[in-house]
Protein backbone atom coordinates (compact mmCIF):
# COMPACT_ATOMS: atom_id res chain seq x y z
CA UNK A 1 0.00 0.00 0.00
CA UNK A 2 1.23 3.45 -0.89
CA UNK A 3 1.72 5.43 2.34
CA UNK A 4 1.80 8.82 0.60
CA UNK A 5 -1.91 9.37 1.19
CA UNK A 6 -1.84 8.13 4.77
CA UNK A 7 -1.41 10.34 7.81
CA UNK A 8 1.12 8.92 10.22
CA UNK A 9 -0.31 9.34 13.73
CA UNK A 10 2.57 7.59 15.47
CA UNK A 11 5.25 5.02 14.68
CA UNK A 12 2.72 2.18 14.37
CA UNK A 13 -0.53 4.02 13.65
CA UNK A 14 -1.59 5.21 10.18
CA UNK A 15 -4.74 7.11 9.34
CA UNK A 16 -6.74 6.97 6.13
CA UNK A 17 -8.39 10.40 6.25
CA UNK A 18 -12.13 10.67 5.67
CA UNK A 19 -13.14 11.08 2.04
CA UNK A 20 -16.20 10.33 -0.07
CA UNK A 21 -18.81 8.41 1.90
CA UNK A 22 -16.55 7.63 4.85
CA UNK A 23 -18.26 8.48 8.16
CA UNK A 24 -15.07 7.98 10.18
CA UNK A 25 -11.39 7.65 9.29
CA UNK A 26 -9.62 4.33 8.76
CA UNK A 27 -6.76 3.42 11.09
CA UNK A 28 -4.06 0.84 10.42
CA UNK A 29 -1.86 -0.39 13.25
CA UNK A 30 1.39 -1.62 11.70
CA UNK A 31 5.06 -0.96 11.16
CA UNK A 32 5.98 0.96 8.01
CA UNK A 33 7.25 -2.17 6.23
CA UNK A 34 3.99 -4.01 6.96
CA UNK A 35 1.88 -1.15 5.60
CA UNK A 36 3.99 -1.08 2.43
CA UNK A 37 3.44 -4.82 2.00
CA UNK A 38 -0.34 -4.55 2.41
CA UNK A 39 -2.57 -4.92 -0.62
CA UNK A 40 -4.33 -1.77 -1.87
CA UNK A 41 -7.57 -3.72 -1.37
CA UNK A 42 -7.07 -3.32 2.40
CA UNK A 43 -7.40 0.44 1.99
CA UNK A 44 -10.44 0.08 -0.27
CA UNK A 45 -12.16 -2.35 2.09
CA UNK A 46 -11.33 -0.26 5.16
CA UNK A 47 -12.84 2.78 3.43
CA UNK A 48 -15.97 0.73 2.74
CA UNK A 49 -16.21 -0.33 6.40
CA UNK A 50 -15.72 3.30 7.46
CA UNK A 51 -18.76 4.17 5.32
CA UNK A 52 -21.15 1.78 7.10
CA UNK A 53 -24.01 3.27 9.17
CA UNK A 54 -23.43 3.63 12.90
CA UNK A 55 -19.69 3.02 12.86
CA UNK A 56 -17.96 4.33 15.98
CA UNK A 57 -14.62 6.22 16.01
CA UNK A 58 -12.84 4.51 13.11
CA UNK A 59 -12.51 1.42 10.96
CA UNK A 60 -9.40 -0.33 12.24
CA UNK A 61 -6.97 -2.78 10.65
CA UNK A 62 -4.54 -4.94 12.60
CA UNK A 63 -0.92 -5.49 11.49
CA UNK A 64 -1.79 -8.71 9.63
CA UNK A 65 -4.63 -7.09 7.65
CA UNK A 66 -5.17 -8.49 4.20
CA UNK A 67 -7.78 -8.56 1.48
CA UNK A 68 -10.99 -10.18 2.74
CA UNK A 69 -14.58 -10.26 1.49
CA UNK A 70 -16.32 -7.19 2.88
CA UNK A 71 -13.98 -6.18 5.69
CA UNK A 72 -10.29 -6.77 5.31
CA UNK A 73 -9.25 -9.85 7.31
CA UNK A 74 -7.83 -8.36 10.50
CA UNK A 75 -10.39 -5.55 10.36
CA UNK A 76 -12.07 -4.28 13.54
CA UNK A 77 -15.14 -2.07 13.79
CA UNK A 78 -17.78 -1.22 16.39
CA UNK A 79 -21.26 -0.07 15.47
CA UNK A 80 -23.74 1.82 17.65
CA UNK A 81 -27.21 0.30 17.39
CA UNK A 82 -28.77 3.59 18.50
CA UNK A 83 -27.07 5.32 15.57
CA UNK A 84 -28.44 2.89 12.99
CA UNK A 85 -25.46 0.58 13.38
CA UNK A 86 -25.25 -2.48 11.17
CA UNK A 87 -24.65 -6.12 12.01
CA UNK A 88 -22.37 -7.82 9.50
CA UNK A 89 -22.38 -11.61 9.36
CA UNK A 90 -19.52 -11.63 6.90
CA UNK A 91 -17.43 -8.93 8.55
CA UNK A 92 -14.19 -10.82 8.64
CA UNK A 93 -15.04 -13.81 6.49
CA UNK A 94 -16.65 -17.00 7.59
CA UNK A 95 -13.91 -18.78 9.53
CA UNK A 96 -15.62 -18.09 12.81
CA UNK A 97 -13.76 -20.90 14.51
CA UNK A 98 -10.44 -19.55 13.34
CA UNK A 99 -7.99 -18.87 16.10
CA UNK A 100 -4.38 -18.60 16.98
CA UNK A 101 -2.86 -20.49 19.85
CA UNK A 102 0.69 -20.26 21.12
CA UNK A 103 2.00 -23.33 22.87
CA UNK A 104 5.18 -22.63 24.78
CA UNK A 105 7.57 -25.58 24.53
CA UNK A 106 10.11 -24.27 27.01
CA UNK A 107 12.85 -25.36 24.59
CA UNK A 108 15.83 -23.15 23.83
CA UNK A 109 16.90 -22.53 20.23
CA UNK A 110 20.17 -24.37 20.96
CA UNK A 111 18.16 -27.54 21.58
CA UNK A 112 16.62 -27.38 18.11
CA UNK A 113 19.71 -27.39 15.94
CA UNK A 114 20.45 -29.67 12.99
CA UNK A 115 18.35 -32.75 12.28
CA UNK A 116 16.26 -32.36 15.47
CA UNK A 117 14.36 -29.54 13.81
CA UNK A 118 13.31 -31.77 10.92
CA UNK A 119 12.42 -34.63 13.25
CA UNK A 120 10.23 -32.32 15.31
CA UNK A 121 8.41 -31.11 12.19
CA UNK A 122 7.84 -34.71 11.03
CA UNK A 123 6.52 -35.71 14.46
CA UNK A 124 4.14 -32.75 14.61
CA UNK A 125 2.81 -33.68 11.17
CA UNK A 126 2.43 -37.34 12.13
CA UNK A 127 0.73 -36.70 15.47
CA UNK A 128 -1.55 -33.75 14.63
CA UNK A 129 -4.23 -34.51 12.05
CA UNK A 130 -4.42 -31.56 9.67
CA UNK A 131 -5.08 -31.16 5.96
CA UNK A 132 -7.67 -32.36 3.45
CA UNK A 133 -8.72 -35.97 3.81
CA UNK A 134 -7.27 -36.46 7.29
CA UNK A 135 -9.61 -37.29 10.14
CA UNK A 136 -9.15 -37.32 13.87
CA UNK A 137 -9.45 -40.14 16.40
CA UNK A 138 -12.49 -38.46 17.91
CA UNK A 139 -15.86 -39.65 16.63
CA UNK A 140 -18.82 -38.27 18.55
CA UNK A 141 -22.33 -39.66 18.77
CA UNK A 142 -25.17 -37.18 18.26
CA UNK A 143 -25.59 -36.92 22.04
CA UNK A 144 -21.86 -36.34 22.63
CA UNK A 145 -21.80 -33.72 19.84
CA UNK A 146 -24.53 -31.77 21.65
CA UNK A 147 -22.63 -32.08 24.94
CA UNK A 148 -19.49 -30.75 23.22
CA UNK A 149 -21.38 -27.81 21.70
CA UNK A 150 -22.94 -26.98 25.08
CA UNK A 151 -19.83 -27.48 27.19
CA UNK A 152 -17.14 -26.05 24.89
CA UNK A 153 -13.58 -26.24 26.14
CA UNK A 154 -14.76 -27.43 29.59
CA UNK A 155 -16.25 -30.47 27.84
CA UNK A 156 -12.86 -31.20 26.22
CA UNK A 157 -11.10 -30.93 29.59
CA UNK A 158 -13.73 -33.23 31.11
CA UNK A 159 -12.93 -35.77 28.39
CA UNK A 160 -9.25 -35.60 29.21
CA UNK A 161 -8.14 -33.39 26.29
CA UNK A 162 -6.61 -30.67 28.44
CA UNK A 163 -6.25 -29.44 31.97
CA UNK A 164 -8.31 -27.09 34.08
CA UNK A 165 -5.45 -24.58 33.87
CA UNK A 166 -5.96 -24.41 30.09
CA UNK A 167 -9.42 -22.93 30.59
CA UNK A 168 -7.93 -19.95 32.39
CA UNK A 169 -6.03 -19.03 29.24
CA UNK A 170 -9.03 -19.09 26.90
CA UNK A 171 -11.47 -16.22 26.40
CA UNK A 172 -14.64 -16.86 28.45
CA UNK A 173 -13.01 -20.16 29.47
CA UNK A 174 -13.91 -21.49 26.01
CA UNK A 175 -17.63 -21.64 26.65
CA UNK A 176 -20.63 -19.41 26.03
CA UNK A 177 -23.54 -19.52 28.45
CA UNK A 178 -26.79 -20.45 26.77
CA UNK A 179 -25.15 -22.32 23.88
CA UNK A 180 -27.99 -24.19 22.18
CA UNK A 181 -27.03 -27.25 20.13
CA UNK A 182 -30.58 -27.41 18.77
CA UNK A 183 -29.87 -24.15 16.92
CA UNK A 184 -27.17 -25.92 14.87
CA UNK A 185 -28.48 -27.72 11.80
CA UNK A 186 -28.04 -31.46 11.38
CA UNK A 187 -26.13 -30.68 8.17
CA UNK A 188 -23.59 -28.57 10.05
CA UNK A 189 -23.18 -31.24 12.72
CA UNK A 190 -22.64 -33.90 10.07
CA UNK A 191 -19.95 -31.78 8.45
CA UNK A 192 -18.23 -31.31 11.80
CA UNK A 193 -18.29 -35.01 12.69
CA UNK A 194 -15.14 -36.13 10.84
CA UNK A 195 -13.25 -32.92 11.55
CA UNK A 196 -13.43 -33.35 15.33
CA UNK A 197 -9.99 -33.62 16.83
CA UNK A 198 -8.24 -32.26 13.74
CA UNK A 199 -6.64 -28.90 13.15
CA UNK A 200 -8.74 -28.41 10.01
CA UNK A 201 -7.75 -28.36 6.39
CA UNK A 202 -5.79 -25.18 5.93
CA UNK A 203 -4.21 -24.70 9.30
CA UNK A 204 -0.60 -23.97 9.90
CA UNK A 205 1.71 -25.15 12.61
CA UNK A 206 4.63 -22.83 13.00
CA UNK A 207 7.66 -23.20 15.16
CA UNK A 208 8.73 -19.77 16.27
CA UNK A 209 11.49 -18.46 18.44
CA UNK A 210 10.55 -15.83 20.99
CA UNK A 211 13.32 -13.23 21.09
CA UNK A 212 11.68 -10.77 23.45
CA UNK A 213 8.28 -9.68 24.69
CA UNK A 214 7.05 -6.11 24.69
CA UNK A 215 4.08 -4.52 26.34
CA UNK A 216 2.52 -1.49 24.66
CA UNK A 217 1.41 -0.19 28.07
Amino acid at each position, binding site marked *: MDTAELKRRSEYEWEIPRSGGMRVPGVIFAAHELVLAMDEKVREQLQNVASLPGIVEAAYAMPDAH*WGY*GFPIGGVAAFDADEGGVVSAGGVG*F*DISCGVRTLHTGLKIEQLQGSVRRQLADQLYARIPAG*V*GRTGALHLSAKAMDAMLRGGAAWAVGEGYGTAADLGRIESAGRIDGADPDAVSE*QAKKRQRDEMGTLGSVSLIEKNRVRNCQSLR
Partner: protein
Amino acid sequence: MMSWQTFPHEADVGVRGCGATLAEAFAGAATALTSVVCAPAEVVARESVAITCRAPDRELLLVDWLNALIYEMATRHLLFSRFEVAIAGGEQGSEQGSEQGIGRELTLKATVFGEAIDVARHQPAAEAKGASFCELRVARADDGSWCAQCVVDV
Protein backbone atom coordinates in the same frame (compact mmCIF):
# COMPACT_ATOMS: atom_id res chain seq x y z
CA MET B 1 -18.51 -24.93 -25.11
CA MET B 2 -18.02 -25.07 -21.37
CA SER B 3 -14.84 -23.56 -19.93
CA TRP B 4 -13.60 -22.95 -16.41
CA GLN B 5 -10.84 -21.15 -14.58
CA THR B 6 -9.83 -19.86 -11.19
CA PHE B 7 -8.97 -16.22 -10.56
CA PRO B 8 -6.83 -14.72 -7.82
CA HIS B 9 -7.96 -13.30 -4.50
CA GLU B 10 -5.33 -12.57 -1.87
CA ALA B 11 -6.82 -14.65 0.95
CA ASP B 12 -8.90 -17.12 -1.05
CA VAL B 13 -9.58 -18.11 -4.63
CA GLY B 14 -12.18 -17.23 -7.25
CA VAL B 15 -13.94 -19.82 -9.42
CA ARG B 16 -15.48 -19.04 -12.81
CA GLY B 17 -17.34 -21.11 -15.37
CA CYS B 18 -18.57 -20.06 -18.79
CA GLY B 19 -20.74 -21.79 -21.36
CA ALA B 20 -23.40 -21.52 -24.01
CA THR B 21 -26.11 -21.96 -21.38
CA LEU B 22 -26.52 -21.01 -17.73
CA ALA B 23 -26.30 -24.73 -16.83
CA GLU B 24 -22.97 -25.05 -18.67
CA ALA B 25 -21.60 -22.02 -16.85
CA PHE B 26 -22.64 -23.56 -13.51
CA ALA B 27 -20.98 -26.87 -14.48
CA GLY B 28 -17.83 -24.92 -15.35
CA ALA B 29 -17.83 -23.13 -11.99
CA ALA B 30 -18.17 -26.54 -10.31
CA THR B 31 -15.18 -27.87 -12.27
CA ALA B 32 -13.19 -24.81 -11.21
CA LEU B 33 -14.20 -25.60 -7.61
CA THR B 34 -12.70 -29.08 -7.94
CA SER B 35 -9.56 -27.53 -9.43
CA VAL B 36 -9.05 -25.65 -6.15
CA VAL B 37 -8.48 -29.06 -4.52
CA CYS B 38 -6.79 -31.05 -7.31
CA ALA B 39 -6.60 -31.47 -11.08
CA PRO B 40 -10.14 -32.34 -12.23
CA ALA B 41 -8.68 -34.72 -14.86
CA GLU B 42 -7.36 -36.88 -12.00
CA VAL B 43 -10.84 -37.47 -10.61
CA VAL B 44 -12.53 -40.58 -12.01
CA ALA B 45 -16.31 -40.49 -12.37
CA ARG B 46 -17.03 -43.71 -10.44
CA GLU B 47 -20.08 -42.77 -8.39
CA SER B 48 -22.83 -40.18 -8.52
CA VAL B 49 -24.74 -37.91 -6.17
CA ALA B 50 -27.99 -36.07 -6.91
CA ILE B 51 -28.20 -32.41 -5.91
CA THR B 52 -31.18 -30.06 -5.98
CA CYS B 53 -31.06 -26.34 -5.16
CA ARG B 54 -33.66 -23.60 -5.28
CA ALA B 55 -33.05 -19.87 -5.12
CA PRO B 56 -34.85 -16.63 -6.00
CA ASP B 57 -32.14 -15.45 -8.41
CA ARG B 58 -29.20 -16.77 -10.45
CA GLU B 59 -26.46 -15.45 -8.22
CA LEU B 60 -27.94 -16.93 -5.05
CA LEU B 61 -28.43 -20.15 -6.99
CA LEU B 62 -24.71 -20.24 -7.86
CA VAL B 63 -23.73 -19.80 -4.19
CA ASP B 64 -26.23 -22.49 -3.13
CA TRP B 65 -24.98 -24.84 -5.86
CA LEU B 66 -21.32 -24.48 -4.91
CA ASN B 67 -22.14 -24.80 -1.21
CA ALA B 68 -24.15 -27.97 -1.90
CA LEU B 69 -21.12 -29.43 -3.72
CA ILE B 70 -18.79 -28.38 -0.88
CA TYR B 71 -21.11 -30.07 1.62
CA GLU B 72 -21.15 -33.32 -0.36
CA MET B 73 -17.36 -33.17 -0.77
CA ALA B 74 -16.86 -32.62 2.98
CA THR B 75 -19.31 -35.17 4.34
CA ARG B 76 -18.85 -37.96 1.78
CA HIS B 77 -15.12 -37.31 1.26
CA LEU B 78 -15.69 -37.18 -2.48
CA LEU B 79 -14.22 -35.18 -5.35
CA PHE B 80 -16.30 -34.48 -8.45
CA SER B 81 -15.26 -34.19 -12.08
CA ARG B 82 -18.44 -34.43 -14.16
CA PHE B 83 -21.56 -32.35 -13.68
CA GLU B 84 -24.88 -32.87 -15.44
CA VAL B 85 -26.81 -29.73 -14.64
CA ALA B 86 -30.32 -28.57 -15.56
CA ILE B 87 -31.75 -25.23 -14.48
CA ALA B 88 -35.41 -24.32 -14.79
CA GLY B 89 -37.51 -21.29 -13.90
CA GLY B 90 -36.60 -17.67 -13.32
CA GLU B 91 -37.07 -16.80 -16.99
CA GLN B 92 -33.42 -17.85 -17.35
CA GLY B 93 -32.07 -17.43 -20.81
CA SER B 94 -34.87 -15.10 -21.73
CA GLU B 95 -33.88 -11.74 -23.19
CA GLN B 96 -36.92 -10.29 -21.46
CA GLY B 97 -35.91 -11.77 -18.11
CA SER B 98 -34.89 -9.29 -15.47
CA GLU B 99 -31.18 -8.70 -14.92
CA GLN B 100 -30.88 -11.12 -12.00
CA GLY B 101 -33.49 -13.62 -13.11
CA ILE B 102 -35.80 -12.39 -10.38
CA GLY B 103 -39.46 -13.09 -10.85
CA ARG B 104 -39.74 -16.84 -10.60
CA GLU B 105 -37.78 -19.19 -8.37
CA LEU B 106 -34.97 -21.04 -10.10
CA THR B 107 -34.49 -24.75 -9.58
CA LEU B 108 -31.24 -26.53 -10.28
CA LYS B 109 -31.19 -30.30 -10.56
CA ALA B 110 -27.88 -32.01 -11.05
CA THR B 111 -26.22 -35.39 -11.05
CA VAL B 112 -22.56 -35.08 -10.20
CA PHE B 113 -19.97 -37.77 -10.71
CA GLY B 114 -16.71 -38.40 -8.93
CA GLU B 115 -14.83 -40.62 -6.53
CA ALA B 116 -13.58 -40.83 -2.95
CA ILE B 117 -10.62 -38.63 -2.18
CA ASP B 118 -7.30 -40.47 -2.32
CA VAL B 119 -4.73 -38.28 -0.61
CA ALA B 120 -1.74 -39.99 -2.27
CA ARG B 121 -3.16 -39.84 -5.79
CA HIS B 122 -5.13 -36.58 -5.73
CA GLN B 123 -2.59 -34.61 -3.68
CA PRO B 124 -5.24 -32.20 -2.38
CA ALA B 125 -3.85 -28.67 -2.19
CA ALA B 126 -6.67 -27.06 -0.23
CA GLU B 127 -10.23 -27.56 0.93
CA ALA B 128 -13.03 -25.32 -0.25
CA LYS B 129 -14.98 -24.41 2.89
CA GLY B 130 -17.74 -22.26 1.50
CA ALA B 131 -18.87 -20.12 -1.42
CA SER B 132 -19.09 -16.38 -0.72
CA PHE B 133 -20.88 -13.36 -2.17
CA CYS B 134 -17.49 -11.77 -2.89
CA GLU B 135 -16.99 -11.11 -6.64
CA LEU B 136 -20.30 -12.93 -7.13
CA ARG B 137 -21.57 -12.44 -10.66
CA VAL B 138 -23.73 -14.39 -13.08
CA ALA B 139 -24.03 -12.58 -16.38
CA ARG B 140 -24.81 -13.08 -20.02
CA ALA B 141 -22.40 -11.76 -22.64
CA ASP B 142 -23.40 -10.01 -25.88
CA ASP B 143 -22.92 -13.26 -27.79
CA GLY B 144 -25.53 -14.94 -25.56
CA SER B 145 -23.06 -17.05 -23.57
CA TRP B 146 -23.09 -17.14 -19.77
CA CYS B 147 -20.40 -16.75 -17.11
CA ALA B 148 -20.83 -17.51 -13.39
CA GLN B 149 -18.26 -16.68 -10.74
CA CYS B 150 -17.60 -16.05 -7.05
CA VAL B 151 -14.81 -16.29 -4.49
CA VAL B 152 -14.70 -19.45 -2.38
CA ASP B 153 -13.33 -19.60 1.14
CA VAL B 154 -10.37 -21.99 1.35
